């Protein structure tokens, strides 16, 4: 593996230097996000379903659903283990809103699922105690 490719995933996703409105428009088909359907939060955790990074699952998804961009495939690879929407956005160098649209495509195709990540309205003391203990251990 060369250094140049060390961070690479969906090569054209990371090679794309253009982060302007045109790239975003193409990727999202002009769809605005987030919160359109799924109410994705900055820290909603996304994880791949099964092993969709294996080529057969992805090609099945491409057959059944809209065309998947390299960015979609990159998300799937990132999310072999859980990762937040905002981290995916940073790694793809795409705005949060555009990233949310791509994740919604993958949710629809059942290639990823999300884990509830939003703070309950009334904070749970046990949850905060766990946070406190964790911070004290750092």
């Amino acid at each position, binding site marked *: 593996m060369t250094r140049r490719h060390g961070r*690479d995933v969906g090569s054209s996703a990371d090679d794309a230097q253009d982060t302007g409105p045109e790239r975003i428009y193409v990727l999202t088909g002009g769809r605005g996000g987030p919160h359109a359907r799924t109410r994705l939060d*900055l820290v909603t955790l996304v994880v791949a379903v099964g092993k969709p990074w294996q080529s057969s699952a992805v090609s099945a998804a491409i057959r059944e659903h809209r065309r998947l961009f390299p960015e979609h495939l990159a998300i799937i690879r990132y999310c072999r283990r859980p990762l*937040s929407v905002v981290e995916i956005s*940073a*790694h793809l160098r795409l705005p949060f809103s555009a990233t949310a649209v791509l994740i919604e495509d993958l949710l629809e195709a059942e290639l990823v699922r999300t884990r509830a990540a939003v703070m309950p309205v009334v*904070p749970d003391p046990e949850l905060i105690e*766990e946070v*406190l203990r*964790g911070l004290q251990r750092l």
Partner: protein
Amino acid sequence: MGFNGSESPGDLRTGVRTLEPTAAIALKIAVVGPLGVGKSTLVRSVSEISPLTTEETMSRQSVPIDALGPSSTKTHTTVAMDFGRITVSERIVLYLFGTPGQERFWFLWDGLVDGALGAVVIVDVRRLAESFDVLDRLERRGCAFIVAANGFPGSPIYRPEELREALDLPAAVPVVNFDARDRESSRSVLVSLAEYLLAAARRPGGVG
């Protein structure tokens, strides 16, 4: 393409440090304050990953997003936000967002404060007045916060009571002095926030 489902947290191929498979609950902490007060420094001091940046392209709220095509001549504003991450237990991960406090960025961090566990307001004792608006805004939104005065070389050190009075804060709101460059000091700020939140959560009526 050789993906084999390797479980290494720092994936060599993607360069992405994913979370533990057991991670289930992600919580947000907003780190707010004026430009140059040490927000990104605090995040860098305590984060388990190299801090990342997310950007959002903003257009005026009065213009529907759908009306903007790729050839739109409308000017967009790009707002960047730094963030870091701390895994505090098998299931809980904290995300720390360093958020610009200026008024023109508030529309961005309103979405962040919404659902945040709490906030750390970093102040520079030499320019306290710059933090008044941020404090007002958090109070109005009912977001629990503590105030942390970042010690810059050569800046005076005030006792927390003096700072609390100068900032007109309720007695319950913790005020601490710290050094954003120091990991231990920055960690202790987060511990203070968590202790404050815990006390409030155990009290009927919550933060107040």
